[in-house]
Structures are given as structure tokens and as C-alpha cells.
């Protein structure tokens, strides 16, 4: 009986103590007619050895040689220490730190995380994570609606160059609360938003604006101007950012004169493996003045009875387990373990290290762009500065080119048609510090062949 420790003797003693004849008797309050029959779809149990064999076989099927897909999840070097530490049973198998005295490890770690992520984003405060970057944006939209008491419209502008998957998720989540999302079109030459486009909303009540930079195409938005426009008219600014980029690029806390109001993003680049899409974690920071509208756990530093420093969950009156229907969100379990990984990653890399990673990503992306000039039938679609990702326009349908590259186990990029039906011959290509010169040459060679 995998994982069940009961011996026949144990079972006997226990049944006697309870005063029943069989385990079956313990289910006698369940009406007979709804009792389950046999399970039909679940095979007999297997041992760990067979499991590993099966899983190794399946995992091997999915291996590729090189992956240039980014589009919201990025391959970075993850120091060995990160997951060795995170996998310690004390982190892995603990629960939400409800009993603070027996959970100071997790609590202090979250406090350290909050300290680090607010430094990266340049924001005042952070929560302990939400599910992922996309759901973080949805929560930010809901939060903005609560926080912006002056705005009545429940209308949110979404800079259309942002991640379309984030857009979709936000839509799924906020639509039940009568919130409307309107898109700001992007300039087809730069792949970014022209601040001038905003003029058309000049006379409207806009609750918040969502600005993603680097945007989905890797392009850098004119965040200062966009932020200024919003703040000038009482619109809250929600920033969607990539944490690695923030050691190099101006952080949302410094956008415009007074910074974004809420900053969210996916923490995956900070030491989390690609892992087919999760678990990652969404981070969520805001200005101090709206912290009580923030969803999710927050850890505070305090003292114990003897004045010793200690850490505890705080501002719990925002949360569902206290406030129930009036809570800021229904979120309960979040992504604690991934936050642990990110905290260890940030500790190991430090500001210089993350800056070096960002620079390396950038330099290697530039190198790819240089090498592209030698490829006939492939060129960057947009002008303007990018961070570690760019759109390449091909002389052939993107699907065919990517298929041809995939034959050689090279995932050459993301097929933009999947989100932008009109972009049939465009791919979105990501380059991080993990890609060597040789890798870039392999990409170029493979691309050339595919374009013939």
C-alpha cells in the first residue's frame, strides 16, 4: 500500500478503539445509492522504478537541441544551489506559514523576497506572489478598479503591444465584474505604442492603463510619456515588466515623474525552469498608499514578546480567510516555493549579476541581429530598441520555416500567427545568456536552410 503505513495489527487496534468492525463501517453515513463503483480509467499502481522508466521515456520524446522561443518564458542559467536549497524538505513540504513561530524560515524568506523585488521594480511594497504573470495582471486590473475611487468607468486601456496571453487571461478574469478592456493600437513600424495614440481617450474616464515594457515583441515602450499622460488625468498606471530587464532598464517605480502605481510580471526568469509553463509565479508590487487594496499574502517584520525580531503574515484583513466575501481577492495558496527559488537566485546573482545577465542577453541578441544580415529572406520587422527578443520577418510562411528547423530539433521561435493572424510570416525570437556563438551560428545555418 504505497505511502499508507498501517499494518494489519494497527488496523485492528484502531478499529477496536473506534468500536467498528471494518473500515467500511466508517462510511455508513454516506447514502448507499451514491457509493462509487470500481474506478475504470485508472490502471493498477506501479512501482517507482517503473514510473521513472515511463516518465524518462516520455520526457525524452520532448527533448530539443536548442530553443529560441521566449514569448513570456525564458531560458536562463539556474545556479545549482537554487534548487538544491529549495528542494530541502523544510521548504518543499511546509504549508502557508499560519503558525508564525514554526515558520520563521519561510516568513523571513518572503520578507527578503519582498525587499528584493521592490528594489528591482523600484516600488514601495510587494506581496508574496500570485499565480503567474498573467493572473497578476488580472489582479492588478481588479485592484486598480478598487483603488481608483475617482474613476467610475471601470475601463482599462491595454497597450496592444503587450503579451496577448496576458490580455486573454485578464479578460477571462475581469469580465465578470463589468470591467472593460480597450486596446491601444501599436505602430506597425516600431512595434511599440505611439504616445500620441492616447489622445483619443483624452476626454474619457479611464481607470487604469496597462503598459508592458519590454513588450511582447521585445520592444521598449516610451514608458515615461505614457505614464505622464495617465497620471495627468487620474488614470492609474499598471506596469508589466520582466524582472531580469530591470537591472538594466528603468524600473516602473521610476516611470514618469512619480512611477507606476502597480507593477506586475512573471518571476520565471529569476531561477525558475521553463517546465512546460509552470509552476512560475506572478509578482505584484504597488505604491504604499494602495497597499490595502493589494491581494495575496504579505509578510511584515515585527518583534516577539521578548523584543526579538520576527516575521509574520500581516494585513490579513484583506484576505479571504478573514474578510471572506469582502476580500481583495479569493487567492489563498500562491506560489511560495517559486518565490523561494527566486529569492535564492536574486541573492546569488545580486544586482551586478542580474545586470550582467541582462547585458549578456542584450549583447547576444544584438549579435544575432548582426548575423541575420547574412540571411536572405529574414530581417527584423521593427526598428527601435529591443530587449532580448525580436520579431523577424521571413520570406516564407513562418510555420513552414519553423517546421523545417524543428526537424533538426531547433525551436526557432514563436509563430506570431498564433496570436496575430495577420502576421503569417513573422517569428518572435528570444536570445538569452545561455546561447553561445555556436548556438547562434546553428540557428542561422538552420534558418538559411529552411528559407531555401
Amino acid at each position, binding site marked *: 500500500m504505497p505511502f499508507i503505513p498501517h499494518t494489519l495489527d494497527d488496523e485492528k487496534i484502531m478499529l477496536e478503539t473506534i468500536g467498528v468492525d471494518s473500515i467500511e463501517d466508517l462510511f455508513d453515513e454516506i447514502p448507499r445509492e451514491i457509493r462509487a463503483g470500481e474506478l475504470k480509467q485508472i490502471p493498477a499502481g506501479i512501482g517507482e522504478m517503473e514510473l521513472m522508466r515511463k516518465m524518462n521515456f516520455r520526457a525524452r520524446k520532448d527533448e530539443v537541441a536548442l530553443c529560441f522561443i521566449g514569448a513570456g518564458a525564458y531560458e536562463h542559467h539556474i545556479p545549482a544551489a537554487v534548487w538544491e536549497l529549495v528542494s530541502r524538505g523544510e521548504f518543499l513540504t511546509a504549508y502557508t506559514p499560519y503558525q508564525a513561530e514554526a515558520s520563521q524560515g519561510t516568513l523571513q524568506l518572503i520578507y527578503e523576497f519582498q525587499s528584493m523585488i521592490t528594489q528591482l521594480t523600484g516600488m514601495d511594497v510587494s506581496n508574496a506572489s500570485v499565480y503567474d504573470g498573467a493572473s497578476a495582471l488580472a489582479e492588478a486590473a481588479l485592484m486598480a478598479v478598487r483603488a481608483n475611487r475617482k474613476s467610475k468607468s471601470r475601463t482599462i486601456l491595454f497597450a496592444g503591444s503587450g503579451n496577448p496571453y496576458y490580455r486573454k487571461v485578464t479578460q477571462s478574469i475581469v469580465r465578470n465584474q463589468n470591467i472593460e478592456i480597450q486596446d491601444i493600437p501599436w505602430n506597425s513600424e516600431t512595434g511599440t505604442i505611439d504616445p500620441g495614440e492616447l489622445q483619443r481617450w483624452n476626454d474619457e474616464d479611464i481607470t487604469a492603463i496597462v503598459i508592458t515594457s519590454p513588450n511582447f515583441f521585445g520592444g521598449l515602450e516610451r514608458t515615461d510619456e505614457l505614464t505622464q499622460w495617465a497620471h495627468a488625468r487620474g488614470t492609474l498606471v499598471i506596469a508589466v515588466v520582466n524582472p531580469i530587464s530591470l537591472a538594466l532598464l528603468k524600473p516602473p517605480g521610476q516611470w514618469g515623474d512619480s512611477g507606476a502605481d502597480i507593477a506586475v510580471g512573471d518571476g520565471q526568469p529569476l531561477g525558475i525552469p521553463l517546465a512546460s509553463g509552470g509552476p512560475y509565479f506572478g509578482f505584484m508590487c504597488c505604491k504604499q498608499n494602495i497597499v490595502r487594496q493589494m491581494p495575496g499574502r504579505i509578510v511584515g517584520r515585527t518583534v516577539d514578546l521578548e523584543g526579538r525580531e520576527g516575521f509574520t503574515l500581516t494585513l490579513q484583513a484583506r484576505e479571504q480567510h478573514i474578510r471572506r466575501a469582502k476580500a481583495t481577492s479569493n487567492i489563498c495558496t500562491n506560489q511560495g516555493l517559486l518565490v523561494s527559488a527566486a529569492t535564492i537566485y536574486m541573492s546569488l546573482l545580486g544586482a551586478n549579476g542580474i545586470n550582467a545577465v541582462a547585458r549578456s542577453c542584450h*549583447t547576444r541578441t*544584438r549579435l544575432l541581429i548582426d548575423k541575420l544580415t547574412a540571411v536572405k529572406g529574414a530581417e527584423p520587422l521593427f526598428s527601435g530598441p529591443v530587449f532580448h527578443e525580436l520579431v523577424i520577418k521571413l520570406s516564407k510562411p513562418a510555420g513552414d520555416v519553423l517546421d523545417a528547423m524543428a526537424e533538426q530539433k531547433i525551436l526557432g521561435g514563436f509563430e506570431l500567427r498564433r496570436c496575430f493572424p495577420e502576421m503569417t510570416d513573422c517569428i518572435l525570437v528570444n536570445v538569452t545568456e545561455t546561447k553561445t556563438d555556436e548556438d547562434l551560428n546553428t540557428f542561422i545555418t538552420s534558418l538559411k536552410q529552411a528559407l531555401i
Partner: protein
Amino acid sequence: MLIYEKGSSGRNASAQIPTSSGASSAALVSIPAEYLRTDAPLLPEVSELQVVRHFTNLSRKNFSIDGEFYPLGSCTMKYNPRGAHKAASIPGFLNRHPLAPERHSQGFMQCLYDLQEYLKDLTGMQAVSLTPMAGAQGEFAGVAMIRAYHMERGDHERTEILIPIAAHGTNPATAVMCGYKVKEVGISDSGDVDLDDLKAAVGPATAGLMMTNPSTLGVFERQIKEIASTVHDAGGLLYYDGANLNAILGKVKPGDMGFDVLHMNLHKTFATPHGGGGPGSGPVGVSKRLEPYLPTPIVGRQIVAGKEEFRWLDDDDIPRTIGHLSAFMGNAGILLRAYAYASLLGKEGMQRVGEYATLNANYMARRLADAGFELAYPDRRAAHEFIVTLSEQTKKLGVTAMDFAKRLLDYGYHAPTTYFPLLVPECLLIEPTETETIDEIDGFVDAMKAILEEAETNPSLVTNAPTTMPVKRLDDVKAARELDLAWRPGE
């Protein structure tokens, strides 16, 4: 001491930092200065050994299943098999990009497909979507589907969700997130739903009812069929909060109880690690009429030229979906762990989970009752968990449930859930789970007895607890009043 305070300017873990050769500043010229950051963020400046030592020592300040008995009611803190963790960590899975093409994803997709099938079987539902990333998101998906269903039928007057008062806080919070009002339903003395109250509450405004069964009171709702027909007759749908599925795994299927939609907590019933507060995973299952609304993507299977092929079913295939709930496909790694766990247990193992979880709970409840503790529902079978109320002790001895909880830490046991459900005063909600031995349970009971004796003879031992933890009780009021949510230099 914070890791920041261990740092020193210029120190680093240089083996982790990409060499500058790849990062010439010439290339940065292509980024105009206005986009660049001018100050450096303050992050720790520490060596690799310092990081390892700091977090090793932090971890030692945690209770965990791997270290301690952790009978936290409603959280199903059971053994998280290392084999499942390892299986999900195979490089081929760990390095797979979520947007990799289907033909390079067949191994992963097959695992997910299998898991979908298993979950359908276990719950008796028609279809399953794996994307919700925790129980609460599963609830969201479920209630959003209920809403989509009513909306599509033009049934716009249904604005209320009914929820028994003992429900978990996520239930009402979810209903509100989905644009509903919450109407609470009472509980009778026996722990069952107050049927009269329900009948009074239900009506044309009822969009649905959310409940978990066994309830958070640790007892099985015996009138479930009647509740179901009451709600259904009024045109509402039934939502099953699957957090307590462990209790009945393989014994009774929510689908057979009449539920239209449910979520499961894989991080409970399927033993994926809780990680100090996540990640979780909260797949949803639905009956036929809600199938068109399932959140996407879902793994579909087809036979092409005699060969099994898996493909993503997305908005094109499921046009009435409530949509995506995550950038990609949910907490994929947790789904793999759950799949591994289910594979290890197999169908007999699954059935045993409910049996032995229930056996442990009833044994523990009986032993505590014999030791003089008051059970909230002494005449009921415990499901996988049960409630002890210490209001007697609080009144007589001035020792509260919280004091007991804290003192248990000194005895090396994690405390049960305290003060939930709110319905029962001074309560401890205790869930031993099936993976604990009779010895652990007996040890816990002995500790409870010892604490009771302390409470009678030397109550300050209990009210001052814990004394063996890294800190004593913390000043929560100060924490909330003088908010200190991030380290800043010069402190």
C-alpha cells in the same frame, strides 16, 4: 539576521555571473539612455557559501511534513512522494518550453491527457480542465462557468450564490470575484446543512450553491441528494469544493452526489508538495451541460494513421470557453507530480486513500474524546478530519485553542487549523491524513493530554508557549500598525 545584513559591498557569487565578454557595453549603445536604469537596485552582496548557509539555516526554522507531524485540518498535509518530485524533474520535462510545438510535446501531453482521464473517473464528471493554478482559481473557473451557463441561457436574474456558513473563505470571495452576491446558509446542530434555511434561501435569484462534502466540519453531508434537488429544482447549479476529496477518494464521486462542477486540490489529495504556500493546482471537472465552458487549453487525443496523437484544444475547439486562466497551461510541473502520484497508487491505492484517511481521523477523534476532549460532532463519523472544541477549557482554565496550538509546537507537532470553521468556538480542526502511523497519532494524543494537564496545573506553561521555537509569540498588532514590509538600507 537578514541576508542583506550579511552582505558587503562588492562581494558576489562570481561563478554564477556571466562573463563580461558576452556583455560588451558597445552593444548597449543600441538602447538609448532614456530607457536605462541609472541607479543599481539594492540586492544582497554575498558569496555563494553565504547564500547556501543562510537559506539552509532559514529552512531549519520551518516545520514541514518531512520533519514533523502536521495535522493541519483542511490542508491534507500528507507525504509528498519524492519519486513524484523526481519524475517531474527529468530534464526533458524541466527544459520544455510551454510554447513548444505539439510534435515536440507528445510525452508531456500524454501525461496530462492521462491525468484528465483519471480525474474524470475519480470525480464522476464528464470533462476536466487542468489549467487552474490552485483551489481558489479552480473555484473561480467553476463559478465563472456557472455564470456563463446562465448568461448564455439569458437567465440574467440569477445573481446569488448560496454558501453554507462553515465554508472556506475562498468560496464567498470567489463568488464575489465572479460578480455574484453571497447568501449564507445555516448549519444544523448535527453538522448538516439546515434544509429549512436552504429552502428559504433558494429561489429564482439562485445561480448556484457552493459546498464541500465532507464539509469543513469534518462530517459527510447526509442530505446531499435533497440539497442537490432543491437547488436544481430552483434552476441553480451545484458547485463542489474538492478540497476535502481526500476523505472520499474512490468511495463516492461528487458527480454521483449531483454536483455540476467541482475543483480538486492536487496539492492536497494528490500529494504534491505545498512549498510553504504553493504552488498548487486546482483542476476543474464538469457535467455535460457545463462542458462547453471549460477553461482552455485542454489536451485532446486523436488517432492518426493508427497512431495516438495529442493536441491542444483551445478557443477554436471550445469557442464558448470562459477562456485562459494562465499565460500558458497552468502549473504544469504540479500536474506531472499528480500524475506520477496517481500512477504510483493506481486504482486500489486511490481507494485506500479515503479509507485510511478516514480510519486515522476516527481513531484520533475517539482517542481524544476518551482523553477528555470535546468533539464538536461527537455523534457523527469523522471524515478525514474532525473538530475539537476547547471552549470548556477556555472558560474554566483561561487556556484557549490558540494556546494549545502554540504549546503543541513545543511538543514537536505542528498545530491543527485553529479558529476555523468560525462556527465552532475555540476549535481545532484536525486532519491526520492516511500517511501517518498510529504511533504519530498516539504521540499527538499524548501531547494533547499532557498539555491539558499543564493547563490544569500550570497554565502559564501553555499560555506562554511556544518557548522552544526561534521566536516567541509575535506582535501582530505592531506588524499591522507599523508596517515594515521590506528592508531598506540604514536600518
